């Protein structure tokens, strides 16, 4: 068992930042999760749009107004996987970077395909919204992605 790691209690100092103009599309059907993500990302200055279904998500993504798309795999209508495939097929030059945010573990059969099409894959339950924001901050600033972030310490 991976040991219970001590979380340092930072306490009440998650600063509210000025809008940074970076647009994020969050496609997520679980209302509480999208609320938490949107809240944390907005406080960090991001411009967040949340959508629930795969079909709406695809339509919005095709307009290519976003910098980052956070895509859940198990969503109503088209699945996240289908959305990803569709975007990859018809809009290979999409500006947005697609990060899969899911609680589904990647299975070996679809792994290669997802690795080719997406820019990241994160298991939601393993990250708190704040940790997710840190990963996205690093992505945006071009800092070297710290591996310990993906394996939260």
């Amino acid at each position, binding site marked *: 068992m991976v*040991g219970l790691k001590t979380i340092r209690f930072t306490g009440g100092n998650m600063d509210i930042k000025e809008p940074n103009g970076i647009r994020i599309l969050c496609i997520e059907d679980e209302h509480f999760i999208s609320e938490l993500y949107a809240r944390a990302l907005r406080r960090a200055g991001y411009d967040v749009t949340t959508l629930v279904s795969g079909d709406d998500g695809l339509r919005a993504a095709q307009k290519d107004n976003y910098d980052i798309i956070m895509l859940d795999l198990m969503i109503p209508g088209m699945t996240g996987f289908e959305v990803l495939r569709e975007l990859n097929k018809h809009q290979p030059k999409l500006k947005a970077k697609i990060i899969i945010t899911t609680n589904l573990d990647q299975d070996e059969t679809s792994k290669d395909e997802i690795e080719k099409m997406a820019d990241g894959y994160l298991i939601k339950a393993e990250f708190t919204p704040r940790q997710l924001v840190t990963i996205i901050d690093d992505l945006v600033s071009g800092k070297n992605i710290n*591996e310990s972030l993906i394996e939260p310490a």
Partner: protein
Amino acid sequence: MITYLQPLRESIWLKIILVTLFSLLSGVIAYVILTKYITVSPYVAACSSLAITFIVSVIISKRVADQAMASTNLLVRALIIGLDDSPEIEKPDAKDIIKPSREYLIKLAERAMDINVAIKSTNQAGLSKMHFYQAVADSIAVPIIVVSSKQIITYANNAAIKYLELSPEKIIGQYFYDACNLSFVGGSTLESWLESAKDGSNKQNEIWERVRLNLAEDKRKQFDLAAHYIKDSDKDIELTLAFFDRTLHYERDDHDLSFVSLAVHELRTPLTIMRGYIEVFEDELTESLNSEQTEFMHNMSASAQQLAAFVSSILNVARIEENALYLHLKEENIKKVLEEACKNMQLRARVHDKNIVVNIDDNLPTVGIDKVSIFEVMNNLIDNAIKYTHTKEDITVKTTLKDGMIETTVSDNGIGIASNVIGHVFDKFYRAHKSKNSIGGTGLGLYLSKAIIDAHGGTIWVKSKEDQGSTFGFTVPIYSDIASQIKDSQNKEIVRGAHGWIKNHTLYRG
């Protein structure tokens, strides 16, 4: 075979109506006889004729049901499932052959014709009845094997020889378990059934689902196995086995959402939400909380994280058991990897007033490992060392070159492991220690570690003495020894972690 099935399909309702009519008729006749000729009271007559109606209908229904059952015997099932090799046909469920589709019946007719041809040709040759049955069995697409009471295969049809991927002489006349390496799901196996059959009835059928046949080169097939035996007067058993291949079907199950990955997904969703809201409270409530409440908040957050980690472990255990644990082997500097792993754990060790001493040889050759998995192994070993050491003594991590492998050991001077339980520490859910009630843990850590090291082609071991401490060690291969087996990954820019990956620099705009 068509005539076998047709009456079932066309006349099952007719039969039901006939049974009903006949029993009603018998009731009416009984009533008439009782009132007219025996002259009992109408009340008694009504009751007795109702009873007679009931008894008659039960008896006739039983006969009709027996007839229907008889026509779904093993051979018919074998034929029906034997058509599975025609994927264009929509197949009825093996258990539901009452309503086969039109195409299915046509296909079945073709197969029956094949058999018919076989029968005719054997008749012309004037062969014995035995040969006739053999010819029938040989023309069936279902693999069939006959095993004697000495567990020697006495007969295998053509389909079986093809299915087992062995030459005929390696099947017929051979010991059954040599030719077929089978694994069963759950407790009931062919052997246990045969064992109970020794005292049982003279004739019996049994079906097992999801049986696996292990072939050479890690190839496997999955099927439902139907068995039928006849016991003769000398208590000799002749066992007939039919293999209904389901490899594609079951593999798809395994790869799609298996029960475990679905359960894990469902557990993780509320966990994600809980961890999220706890964090909101942590961030925004702290100032209004007293120190005790702050600690409670911390406990809640830590427990939610622990639960998330445990849920992931369950998934890994399931993967190991489905033989689906995959590693991303890469060339790594072992010193760097271990120092990073120890750095992650050092903080935790400090909290428990312990220190990790790292002593790694310089100039070790590079290793071929999956870094994330080795992190997990190190976390487990160091975590155990911390948990089972109650003094302030150091935990030592050492790495050396040994017998052509790189060996890493984690030693503590803790409470150690008793000699009678030490053989079980790598078992699943085994928590040996008498202190297991006071020390948290799931009993999965060492089981997972062993699976990870095994998958690397290394070995994991433990040496321990009660009250003197334990040393866990594991070996991993040198990169140059396995370099040829490692497929060069095309995604070199991917940064992998235990819970996901990110392509580096993807958003960097200069």
